[in-house]
């Protein structure tokens, strides 16, 4: 590779992060342009609400700007930002006003499958819209694990690391989330 080619290569995320930390706003704007869609998409998947996702995206980048100096390049910038985004969403969940629904000690709505008394009709054929709606109705803990595993494709060990929980808890939450979704989808179908 020639010197000219090297000079023309776009800066890496790490280089942009270092410049941003030194106060270069153009560098930070470039980071924002590169990662805005990824951050917004993750916020939307976890929140299920475009307005809240937009607000959270703003919060993530505001927080990123404040903490950009702490990025040392030990991991990929995308990994670091992903973790920061998930943490921001979790903080948002915690700050949210208390839900009125009955919850277990883990803060989740119990999943109930009563064999033999289920709706005799199978769960309807589901589409993305119906599933998005049902995901949005999941308790935050279930939704977070479901989105990270079944939508984003993370392994349980990664989710455990991101959320600071045991891998077994992640598996258990995922299982409950899927069953809860099944119930929600059947309820939706019964109302239509």
């Amino acid at each position: 590779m020639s010197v000219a080619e090297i000079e023309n290569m776009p800066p890496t995320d790490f280089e942009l992060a270092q410049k941003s930390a030194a106060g270069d706003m153009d560098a930070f704007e470039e980071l924002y342009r590169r990662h805005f869609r990824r951050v917004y998409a993750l916020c939307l998947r976890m929140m299920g609400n475009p307005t809240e996702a937009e607000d959270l995206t703003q919060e993530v980048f505001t927080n990123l700007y404040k903490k950009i100096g702490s990025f040392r390049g030990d991991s990929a910038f995308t990994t670091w930002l992903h973790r920061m985004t998930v943490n921001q969403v979790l903080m948002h969940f915690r700050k949210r006003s208390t839900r009125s629904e009955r919850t277990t000690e883990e803060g989740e709505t119990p999943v109930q499958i009563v064999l033999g008394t289920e709706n005799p009709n199978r769960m309807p054929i589901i589409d993305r819209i119906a599933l998005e709606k049902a995901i949005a109705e999941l308790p935050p803990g279930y939704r977070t694990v479901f989105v990270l595993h079944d939508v984003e494709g993370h392994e349980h060990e990664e989710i455990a690391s991101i959320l600071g929980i045991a891998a077994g808890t992640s598996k258990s939450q995922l299982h409950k989330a899927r069953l809860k979704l099944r119930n929600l989808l059947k309820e939706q179908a019964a109302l239509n």
Partner: protein
Amino acid sequence: MNCVKTLELISEFHAGALDETDRVVVHTHLLECVTCAEVFNDVEVIVRVAKVTYLETSIHFPDEHELWRRMNLTKA
């Protein structure tokens, strides 16, 4: 294996994460029990649809320039 135990293991069965003994027992139960088989099929559908839900191509993104403009960035 009864239905309650099978339902507990359905996600692990779906992930192929059960040991051989449990896998065979759950599989056998699913062949015999229509109710549990329906739950398993539904879980399979949910997981499949989830993979195409929120694909970036299906997301309506807000105006990134407007969002950038609204951010009031100041160092802590």
